[in-house]
């Protein structure tokens, strides 16, 4: 156990490092002029040479633009997550597909999900995993329902964003006759063991980094993430035992997310 404690000493350092790198990169990107936004002088000089219809449109919009641009150059917000072209029936399509290694949901899990809410902060995933025979008594399949919350996204570069904190919970169900939801009838009474071995509930916290691809491509962006998770039974054990540290019950997992529809950055 003492070895496990030692293993996790670097974790706070890693989190802090990633966060500070993200913030400093974001600050650097503030200084750079944004190539997308036209300068006010160009905008104004183009107005007189255009046709009547165009000038009426520009009259309507120009003052507000001019005021805004003359004071502070326009910036895209640091957290620019939003849905584009993801309306009506298209909302049935999953916004992303994912693959995850470990995390109590099998050796490898793949799945899909939807992001929603303001700034696309919420994500719900359905994942299917496999626990191969080499890791267990026989091959087991797992099914996971996962809820994620990603409160912040910090745009560091045009091609890079960092999500410094993500958290969530998931329910994992495993196949196999050795597991049960309700204990088998052979046990006396209703609560001989009083727990379910088939379904585990996990809590997790982690971080993510997102790489943007070309705006027109089907693949909007790729996110790499890692998580530290703990399951319900271990958490129960933790609260009854002083000698059991959090580092004993926390496990590491990594994953990749491919954003297909919906969110643009």
């Amino acid at each position, binding site marked *: 156990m003492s070895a496990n404690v030692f293993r996790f000493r670097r974790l706070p350092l890693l989190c802090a*490092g990633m966060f500070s790198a993200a913030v400093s990169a974001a600050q650097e990107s503030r200084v750079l002029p944004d190539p997308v936004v036209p300068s006010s002088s160009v905008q104004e000089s183009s107005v007189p040479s255009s046709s009547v219809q165009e000038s009426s449109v520009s009259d309507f919009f120009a003052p507000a633009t001019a005021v805004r641009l003359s004071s502070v150059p326009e910036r895209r917000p640091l957290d620019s997550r939003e849905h584009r072209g993801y309306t009506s029936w298209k909302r049935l399509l999953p916004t992303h597909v994912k693959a995850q*290694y470990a995390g109590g949901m099998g050796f490898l899990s793949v799945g899909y999900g939807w992001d929603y809410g303001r700034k696309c902060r919420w994500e719900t995933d359905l994942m299917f995993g496999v626990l191969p025979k080499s890791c*267990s008594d026989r091959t087991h399949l797992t099914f996971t329902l996962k809820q994620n919350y990603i409160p912040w996204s910090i745009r560091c570069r045009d091609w890079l964003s960092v999500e410094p904190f993500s958290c969530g919970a998931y329910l994992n169900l495993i196949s196999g006759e050795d597991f049960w939801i309700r204990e088998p009838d052979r046990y006396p009474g209703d609560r001989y063991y009083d727990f379910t071995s088939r379904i585990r509930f996990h809590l997790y916290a982690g971080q993510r980094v997102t790489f943007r691809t070309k705006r027109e491509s089907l693949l909007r962006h790729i996110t790499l993430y890692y998580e530290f998770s703990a399951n319900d039974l271990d958490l129960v054990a933790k609260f009854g035992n002083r000698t059991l540290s959090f580092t004993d019950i926390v496990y590491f997992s990594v994953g990749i997310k491919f954003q297909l529809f919906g969110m643009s950055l």
Partner: protein
Amino acid sequence: MKRPVLFLLTLLAVSSCQVDYHPYDTRVRGECGINAKNMARIEAATAGRTSVRFAVISDTQRWYDETAAAVSVLNGRGDLDFVLHAGDMADFGMKAEFERQRDILNRLRVPYVVLLGNHDCLATGEEIFHRIFGDFNFAFTAGCVRIVCLNTNALEFDLREPVPDFGFIESELTTRPAGIPKTVVAMHAKPCTEQFGTNVAKVFQLAITQFPGLQCCINGHGHNFKVEDVFGDGVLYYECDNIAKRSYLLFTIDETGYECERIPF
């Protein structure tokens, strides 16, 4: 400058983390085959002795603090030859529970052996127990006494395997080393409990009383210290407290007979 540092930190953190494919996977980390190794150590250390002394602890599931306290107390004694754990290391049959309990018990200065408890059989627990500790039925010689450890968790095996295994008892009767005058039988659940059942209870008693010089029986499962003559034939069953009661049993066996003492700590 920042990027290589960040990358190195990430690499360090990742390479040193524990991953969990599933709480019930059977990828055991650390020492395995403990009972066989420790039985050899006990036999070597007590060979030719006419008196042995050992401690019994039981039902340590999810009581890591108390188990660790018991280990320090037992380590404080200088007069023990070995420690016998009467089963139920895990509460839910999860791999991590066995590993944590093993790591605590590995701090014992004297060798220890572990019996299979009913909680140890849950989900893939049987497989994990078999890997870490070994066979469910085993016997070893400690000086003048043969300790016969039997799997009596009949309810868990549900006719998949013979429990109790009369074949093992028979082979132990015929192949036990000559010149060992005494026998102690240890098990997790004693006869006539809901785990053992009543069907073969009397036959079991008939079988174990064939052992030469049967001193007494030791069991756990009930969580309360109790001395009971289950069949009214003079063979006493000593039930060990669960570890939450912070006590252990101390057995001393010599030419004159045996002595059992419940020692709170």
